Structure formats: structure tokens, C-alpha cells
């Protein structure tokens, strides 16, 4: 990504975590195992409880969505679409909260950089300044304060990712 494409610092929440597995594993865990490390509860998911599942379809245009089965019926709630699918180094998706309307959207970019001890996973969530100031997702906050809230939110998720992404023993 060139410097020109980088979102302004005030418009993005950027959070990095060092995980103890190589980039290919980190990428696979982030995408394929997303339901297992992504925190549960209404702070992190639309569907509450233990039965909801989170999926990320592994291709550009694939959906990021939650699903739950109740009485044989499957409810699906889409949170976004994959925009970048470049394993094992880059993943991107649009992100829409449940109260977004029309073309309102934010963007999440995840990079996986190899390090000596594993991978540095960096999430950059941007596009908040395009949301109107009185948008309910901002809870009446200035962009800077809202971006910090999102940063704390991602901090929780990245802590869980690191916990989950431990090297597995040889079979």
C-alpha cells in the first residue's frame, strides 16, 4: 500500500499483536477459525449466546457473517464483504455495524508480517470520519474518541487471537 492510500491517522484505529505462529497459520486462524477466537457477547457479536457462529468466506467478495439455527431455521446476519484476499500476508473486508444504512461502511485491513518469533498481525480499521457525526454507532462521540473506542475493542479481539494462535504440538 502506498503512503497516499493510507487513511489519515485521526480516522483509523490501528492495533497490532505478536502471535507465536508463522504468517500462513496466523492468516488461516484469523479467517478459517474466526468463530473460535472472536469474542462472544453483544459487545462483539450481533447474535448473543453460545450457539451463534461467525464465518468468513475465503475469497474476494466472500461474506463475513453471523448465523444461528433456531427451530430448524437459519438466521444469517451479514457484517461485511471480503475486499482483499492475499494469503498469507493481507486480508481486507468492509465492515458494517447492524445500524448502518445504505452505502455506509467502514474498512478493515489486516496484515501478517513474519517476525523471528512468529507473525505481527496488524488490524487497521478506517472510514469512521465518513459516517455522519450523529450516527448511532458513534454514540455521540467525536471521531478521535470513537476511534479510540474501536481501538480498545480491537485490543480485546487481538488479545484473544494471540491466546488462540499458540503453536500446536506435532500430531
Amino acid at each position, binding site marked *: 500500500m502506498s503512503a497516499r492510500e493510507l487513511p489519515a*491517522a*485521526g480516522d483509523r*484505529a*490501528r*492495533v*497490532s*499483536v505478536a502471535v507465536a505462529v508463522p504468517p500462513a497459520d496466523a492468516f488461516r486462524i484469523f479467517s478459517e477459525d474466526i468463530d473460535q477466537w472472536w469474542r462472544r457477547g453483544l459487545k462483539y457479536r450481533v447474535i448473543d449466546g453460545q450457539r451463534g457462529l461467525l464465518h468468513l468466506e475465503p475469497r474476494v467478495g466472500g461474506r463475513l457473517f453471523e448465523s444461528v439455527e433456531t427451530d430448524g431455521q437459519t438466521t444469517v446476519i451479514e457484517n461485511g464483504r471480503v475486499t482483499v484476499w492475499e494469503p498469507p500476508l493481507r486480508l481486507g473486508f468492509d465492515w458494517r455495524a447492524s445500524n448502518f444504512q445504505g452505502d455506509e461502511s467502514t474498512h478493515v485491513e489486516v496484515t501478517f508480517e513474519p517476525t523471528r518469533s512468529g507473525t505481527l498481525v496488524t*488490524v487497521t480499521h478506517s472510514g469512521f470520519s465518513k459516517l455522519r457525526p450523529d450516527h448511532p454507532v458513534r454514540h455521540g462521540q467525536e471521531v*478521535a*474518541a470513537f*476511534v*479510540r*473506542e474501536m*481501538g*480498545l475493542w*480491537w*485490543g*480485546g479481539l*487481538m*488479545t*484473544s487471537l*494471540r*491466546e488462540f494462535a499458540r503453536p500446536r504440538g506435532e500430531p
Partner: protein
Amino acid sequence: MNRLTVRADRLERLRKLCLALPEASEQEAWGDPTWRVQKRIFAMQKGNFEGGRPALWLKAQDGVQAMLVESDPELFYVPPYVGHKGWVGVYLDGKSLPWKLLGELVGESYRLIAPKRLGGRPGV
């Protein structure tokens, strides 16, 4: 106790935030106020020395220290001694303080330190 550089009303408000958490207690260490749960520190009020800037040190989740320092380097910094373990420093001498955010950060630090029995996620 060191001579405190923090405004008395701000220290009082911080104290209330910290002591509202389950089984939290205050204890002086290195001449500064610290707040603990089962002897383990989750918050420290630092900068109490000649020419020092009053600050609060807290443990933060992965990546949050860098995120906060990037978002406002006038307010947040990497503290000595514990910065490499993910702790973040918050200056307490600004015109106004983001109390809501401080409340959240104090709560997160507590959960990173407290035992599971008290709602903590130790070792995470």
C-alpha cells in the same frame, strides 16, 4: 509518601474509580499511590517527584498501548519499567481528562490482573 503532583480532586476521582472494583485496595509503593487486587497492582499514580508530571499507569490489552499513544501523544505515553509489558501511561495534568475512557481503561487493567473468580482474565 512522595509529595503528590496530581490535583487532589483528580486523585480522589481516580481513587473512587479504582476502589469501586471488587476487592480492590490502595497501598503506597515507592512513595506513590497504587491500587491492587489480591496484592497485584492494576493501577499506579506516578510522577510524584520534583518537576514530575502526574500520570496514571495501567495495564492494557494487546496493541492498545501503541494505539492510544498514536491517537494522542500529548495524553498517552509508554511508561518506563512496565511499558514493554503493555502498560500505558496517561498524563493527568491536562486541562480536562477523558474520564469515561479512563474508567474503561482502569476496568480493563483490573480484568487483566484480577483472578477469574473476580471476573478477571489473568494471563490473557
